[in-house]
């Protein structure tokens, strides 16, 4: 069951997702232990595998540290749903094969703690707690291709060996 962790705020930045004091390592498990630490100290204790994070506009703004995506992925979060994403965070996620969902209406229909189910192909999030459905535009084809290959480097390796 995917639980939604909702942060009804814009500009949740990379310093809040993974503070720079932990950037002396790139170990995903270690980063995961500090995921969202400066935004919600209790996050790592309440998140379970497959859960989703829901945010407002400009999610992931700030630094280019891919560590932000790794911390979220390392915490076994399935995806992040936001109104909009900051550019480098968005690109980093695609490059590491991590699907992001841009859904401008998500915050209107998903409350903290709700159970959600995501249909990536059809492009909607179903809120199983309230019955509401939120549509989103699936990622562009080239991004899906990179994600399906497992990330940009795998995509490059595949391209050169095919």
């Amino acid at each position, binding site marked *: 069951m995917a639980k939604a962790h909702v942060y009804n705020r814009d500009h949740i930045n990379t310093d809040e997702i993974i503070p720079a004091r932990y950037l002396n390592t790139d170990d995903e498990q270690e980063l995961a232990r500090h995921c969202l*630490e400066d935004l919600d100290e209790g996050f790592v204790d309440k998140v379970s595998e497959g859960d989703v994070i829901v945010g407002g506009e400009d999610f992931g703004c700030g630094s*280019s540290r891919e560590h932000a995506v790794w911390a979220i992925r390392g915490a076994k979060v399935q995806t992040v749903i936001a109104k909009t994403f900051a550019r480098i965070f968005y690109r980093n996620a695609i490059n590491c094969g991590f699907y992001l969902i841009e859904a401008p209406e998500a915050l209107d229909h998903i409350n903290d703690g709700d159970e959600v189910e995501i249909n990536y192909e059809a492009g909607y999030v179903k809120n199983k707690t309230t019955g509401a459905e939120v549509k989103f535009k699936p990622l562009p084809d080239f991004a899906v291709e990179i994600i399906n290959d497992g990330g940009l480097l795998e995509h490059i390796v595949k391209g050169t060996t095919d």
Partner: protein
Amino acid sequence: MSMTITEKILAKAAGKESVTAGELVDACIDVVMCHDVTTPPAISMLVEKGLDKVFDKDKIVVTPDHFQPAKDVKSAELHRRLDLWARRHEITHYYKVGRAGVCHALLPEQGHIRPGEVIVGGDSHTCTYGAFAAFSTGVGSTDLAAAIATGKLWFKIPASVKLVLNGSLGPGVYSKDVILAIIARIGTDGALYEAMEFVGPALSEMTMEARMTMTNMAIEAGAKNGIIAFDDTTKQYLDEHLPVSLRGAKSRRAGKAISSTGTSEIAAPAGGGLAMTGGYTVYESDADAEYAKVEEFDCSALEPMVALPHLPSGGVPIGECAGGQMDQAYIGSCTNGRIEDLRIAAKILKGKEVAVRTIVVPATPTIWKQAKDEGLFDIFYDAGCVISAPTCGACLGGFMGVLAEGEKCVSTTNRNFVGRMGSPKSEVYLASPATAAASAVEGKLTDPRKYL
């Protein structure tokens, strides 16, 4: 077809006649910037995927900066991974500690940035280099790895926003105040995914150092890149910093004053990548190029600005926040740690004593030496400041001035996010070197104009 300067550079890099905003291209990279936080993971990925190669050992510039000299065992390990890799691949431009400096100050200073080029770096403030009429953007570790191995990356051509800087800056008002005012108006996502193109008379009067302060913060408005057209000031800086073989501009407009809204078309040379072959190419936006937005700013009316916590868009004129008590002043970083910034701060600190702890961080070894030779260190010492080795240090809450819970710092850096310089319960106030220095003297946010 008419294009913006950003579109022209990316079209050239993609080997195309023209491109339009929104189009996806594969572009050739001229310079890849590597530092100690995002490059070690990129190296590990490459090794793991069996792609441990570099596309061109002359086009990769490596400098540890964030935690250098190493602040703890873990960062020492990052440096060691970077060092072993740079030596294994015989990277030509590898700046070891002693020559290493804050990346975005170091690369232009050492002549690695040329107009018309495509530059990527594993750091969000890589957009700084756009001050040299280049396309330059920050990427994460996976993109960085791909760029290192292949010399290419995919890009979506950004739409451009034109920021017209009218008038002329008054005394005590600097380019930092301009960019803080711009971000206060358009917001931290005011140019999301877009190119911020700066033009106008106020810009022509700015030095390259001052221009870099503005392009540096383009990312704080969400932009993909910031860019400024080539003019005499650019040319003069390049003449002083590029190796002799790379100085000439391959454009018939080179060496002449070019109005930043000028209409000249400059032909792209066949084959793209000019890097290391001598010279550079100057591109300009066409007069009828398309912009998503045009914003005008009256720089004459501008006051010193301070961005209040916790967003770079929190800028207010100093008059609205003067008097706020501070615990620390920080003068440094890729935004304002250049020699011009240290001179501005020193002028205000001369013969005075600071009321709060004040940390001065020259951004590169050359700047450090210049500041020492010019006697600025004596001024800082006499005023009671501490002078650090070149490093990113406390700008990102690393070391050398990290804040405790409840502390407030006036800082010449570029981000004031929650926890950016230390405790999540500390506060960062972004300002110019002049405002930071005046505030250091009084121990509270202070209008620098009273000390001019």
